[in-house]
């Protein structure tokens, strides 16, 4: 700890409880930060690409997660270091923004930090490095725009979309049946997409999973599933052309919010009260029946009496349906959520072509399918799989695929994957570097080297010779002036990513480069770390 002394040799106290804090300054601080960032990147590096390995994470409660999704790994790791937390944030923001490429962005940031370390050792000022990186990233993004290609798809021609989703899924454990899953994702996205406005509301796609069965049994349901069953075991299990009343009020006597007391002091009062209560239940059910509902979905519970009355009047009902599901049902069936029985009108009922209950396996698991809805825009992807972890991982993979499909609908530019975009950027940045006078030139060149590390990691994970493969691809790109050559991870026999149909979205790639550069700049600018020391 650096201390300042006055002329009598007494230390100045600058920080509160100074002696209990550790402080790193200057180059020391930067190096410590860089090594922490690198450590995080190193963990993720082996998960990159189609042949990337998984990580097994054990949560504080002993639950096991197996995944190779960068964002999930980092989220579940017990990270303590501040810089490492920044990297976690980085991957998370990529996840929110793009949904895919969460591993790549961290690997990229790690590579940038590694290059920065070399430059720092040569005495280049961190700010100059940061500026150089900034310039280089701008060049890379521009270059990506340059090499990007538009590709056409329509509601009838979904093949290109499916191909892109397959690229995303091929790095996950589900790659055994990536084709059907990719098709499911694309169909799901297209059915909720607003092609006019080029926007997709992913909230309309619900991803549900149930343990058991095979991955191949995963299906897309044009409608909604609810993990509930009919409130009375003897209600009909299948309803055609259902008119659904969606209620958020319980089938129970009213509970006014204001405090009140009903005093009973005579026998007559007791009796009237009793009659009123009975009438109350009767009224509630009658109201639902009057407006013509053939199915009641309620957020709350039913009294036994009400339950029987419903059953009696031949009005199937579902209780304890969660708020989110209720909203989805309302959207899908075009109904309105009704908070009071008095407000129930025929217009507010939702419509669905078919509501049915389906049971699974040997245990008494039942789910409710609401299909052929009036507004068929809400869809559900129903995942089956061998075990809980498998389903969780499939959910994450499908989420990624959905995001990719959405991004393509928003902006249909693509770049080719397999590291080809990075290599091409690296060549462009390298060439541009020489034109810059000044120290930044070195930083820009370092940036180009860092870009190489993504294809390098890809090659490494695929069991290829990293340096040999990379240099071969690079020279091929320059020689043939074709930015589509990448790493042949799956051992198909060609380097041309266009033939292999490996794409990534342009915005995803650009976002990766920009986000990684930003974080690295932030880390480089830190020159003083004050933290409470360990005790």
């Amino acid at each position, binding site marked *: 700890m650096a201390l300042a002394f006055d002329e009598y040799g007494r230390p100045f106290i600058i920080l509160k409880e100074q002696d209990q804090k550790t402080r790193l300054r200057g180059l020391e601080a930067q*190096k*410590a930060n860089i*090594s922490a960032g690198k*450590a*995080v990147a190193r*963990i993720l590096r*082996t998960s990159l690409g189609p042949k990337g*390995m*998984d*990580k*097994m*994470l*054990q949560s504080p*409660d*002993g639950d*096991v997660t*197996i995944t190779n999704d960068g964002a999930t790994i980092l989220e*579940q*790791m*017990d*990270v*303590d*270091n501040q*810089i*490492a937390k920044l990297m976690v944030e980085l991957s998370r923001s990529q996840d929110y923004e793009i949904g895919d490429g969460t591993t790549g962005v961290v690997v990229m940031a790690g590579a940038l930090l590694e290059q920065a370390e070399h430059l720092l050792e040569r005495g280049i000022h961190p700010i100059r490095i940061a500026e150089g990186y900034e310039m280089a990233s701008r060049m890379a993004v521009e270059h990506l725009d340059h090499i990007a290609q538009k590709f056409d798809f329509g509601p009838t021609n979904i093949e290109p979309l499916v191909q892109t989703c397959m690229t995303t899924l091929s790095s996950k*454990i589900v790659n*055994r049946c990536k084709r059907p899953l990719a098709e499911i994702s694309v169909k799901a996205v297209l059915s909720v997409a607003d092609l006019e406005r080029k926007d997709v509301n992913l909230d309309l796609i619900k991803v549900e999973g149930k343990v*058991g*069965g*095979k991955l191949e049994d995963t299906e897309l349901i044009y409608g909604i599933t609810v993990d509930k069953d009919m409130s009375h*075991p*003897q209600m009909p299990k299948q309803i055609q052309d259902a008119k659904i009343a969606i209620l958020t009020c319980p089938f129970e*006597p*009213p*509970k006014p919010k204001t405090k009140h007391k009903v*005093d*009973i002091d*005579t*026998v007559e009062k*007791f*009796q009237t*009260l009793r009659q009123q*209560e009975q009438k*109350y239940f009767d009224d509630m059910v009658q109201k639902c029946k009057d407006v013509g509902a053939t199915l009641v979905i309620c957020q709350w519970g039913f*009294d*036994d009496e009400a*339950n*029987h*009355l419903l059953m*009696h009047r031949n009005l199937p009902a579902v209780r304890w349906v969660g708020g989110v599901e209720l909203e989805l049902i309302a959207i899908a069936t075009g109904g309105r959520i009704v908070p009071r029985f008095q407000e129930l009108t025929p217009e507010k009922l939702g419509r669905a072509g078919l509501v049915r209950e389906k*049971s699974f*396996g*040997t245990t*008494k698991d039942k789910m409710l399918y609401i299909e052929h809805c009036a507004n068929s825009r809400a869809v559900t992807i129903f995942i089956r*799989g*061998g*075990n*809980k*972890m498998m389903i969780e991982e499939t959910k994450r993979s499908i989420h990624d695929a959905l995001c990719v499909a959405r991004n393509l609908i928003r902006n249909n530019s693509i770049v080719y994957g397999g590291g080809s975009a990075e290599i091409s950027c690296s060549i462009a940045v390298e060439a541009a570097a020489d034109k810059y006078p000044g120290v930044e030139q070195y930083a820009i060149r370092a940036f180009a080297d860092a870009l190489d590390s993504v294809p390098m990691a890809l090659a490494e994970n695929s*069991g290829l010779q990293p340096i040999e493969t990379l240099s071969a691809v690079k020279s091929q790109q320059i020689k043939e002036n074709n930015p589509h050559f990448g790493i042949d991870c799956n051992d198909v026999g060609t380097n041309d990513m266009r033939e292999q149909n490996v794409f990534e979205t342009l915005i995803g790639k650009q976002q990766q480069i920009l986000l990684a550069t930003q974080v690295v700049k932030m880390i480089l600018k830190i020159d003083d770390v004050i933290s409470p020391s360990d005790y």
Partner: protein
Amino acid sequence: MAIEKILKDDATEEKGERARMASFVGAIAITDLIKTTLGPKGMDKILQSTGRGHGITVTNDGATILKSLHIDNPAAKVLIDISKVQDDEVGDGTTSVVVLAGELLREAEKLVAAKIHPMTIISGYRMAAECARSALLQRVVDNKENAEKFKSDLMKIAMTTLSSKILSQDKEHFAQLAVDAVMRLKGSTNLEAIQIIKKPGGSLKDSFLDEGFILDKKIGLGQPKRIENAKILVANTAMDTDKVKIYGARVRVDSMSKVAEIEGAEKEKMREKVQKIIAHGINCFVNRQLIYNFPEELFADAGILAIEHADFDGIERLALVTGGEIASTFDNPESVKLGHCKVIEEIMIGEDKLIHFSGVEMGQACTIVLRGASHHVLDEAERSLHDALCVLSQTVNDTRVLLGGGWPEMIMAKEVDELARKTPGKKSHAIEAFSRALVAIPTIIADNAGLDSADLVAQLRAAHHKEGCNAGIDVISGSVGDMAELGISESFKVKQAVLLSATEAAEMILRVDEIITCAPRQREDRM
């Protein structure tokens, strides 16, 4: 410069070889633990719980054993999970799935040691699993059309499943029980309709299937003990004091006489309710909730049998059996469907009195009464029977059937071996390993039976060299026998689930190259 610590204090991180080693060791340890229970001559395990009373379970059901273990190793947890899912989905094969996954990992460990990349192993395993499945598909027998044959298939499957359990002594008896029970379900998989009542005493042989329905309850005092041509109202309603449900209501009176009046009114209300119930023209009333003395007395006066406190499952089943509906209000007697049965009577099983409903309308539900020497025996018998029922009900839906006794494994192994020979590249090692893992299952079955596994499996392999061979291990005589003749069958659905889940689990564990364990959550010390 020292590497910065990036994880929290107690969190640990294991990488590469060490991580893989940890998961292999964990998975193989679980497999070794459970593999002695495999097969007809498998041994049981005693499990002692740490809870109060140190309850003891004796079982050889894989899922039950694994559920009760406290495991810290993450890879082992994956295996436990697949066994649980197997239990939920098909009910049987819970041990086989873990053993197969463990054997696959054991083979994979050797391959990794021989410097083959896990990804290569995985793609080999995948090809092999696909090939094995199609090999099975080619050999399945489907007797859906022929009801007689199908029934004998079911019988064989039930016997095969039961032969590895405690019930093996009386397996024919129990297989018959299980088949009868499942046939009554008529294709539904809702095993809830089959009730299993356990009563200690007697021997396992005294267990029986009752076509009617048995409710483990007593008949109210002073009420008829036997009713013929019963009309039953099944209800779920409060029969204690019928509370006013309007919120905030309370009684405030200023004199004792008023209290008495209100009490009178309350009684009147109850009386009215009972009258309404009686007005349905019933002579038996079954309620899920308590029936207090007062209404019970009223029912007794009217000569109605009132049964209180039947649990929810009981009520549902009863409604299902008798064809009535569960009622909660009693204002319109004409539209409530009543249940019917020929005779209700009190019967004695062992020391206990039970209520027996016979001659019921709907034939779906039935009751199996298990008798046995002790609670442990009964519990295990119930689990075994449950397994058999699960398998049978699944088989009714998917009627494809295979032979048992290691036959399917040998068939798969042979096809997979074929494939290995045709496949170029490193993958072929993995495919070969897959076939070795498959052969491990008959080997373990033979080992558990105290037979010379090396010799038997070699004979089996030779026998399988011929096309269309039905050879499997005959554990009883300790030789290779014809499974079709011995009548040992298994359900295709179970075998397929075992194959696919085991491969999936093995793949999952193989893909891991790093284990990050978070610091365990701090708990208050309860000890």
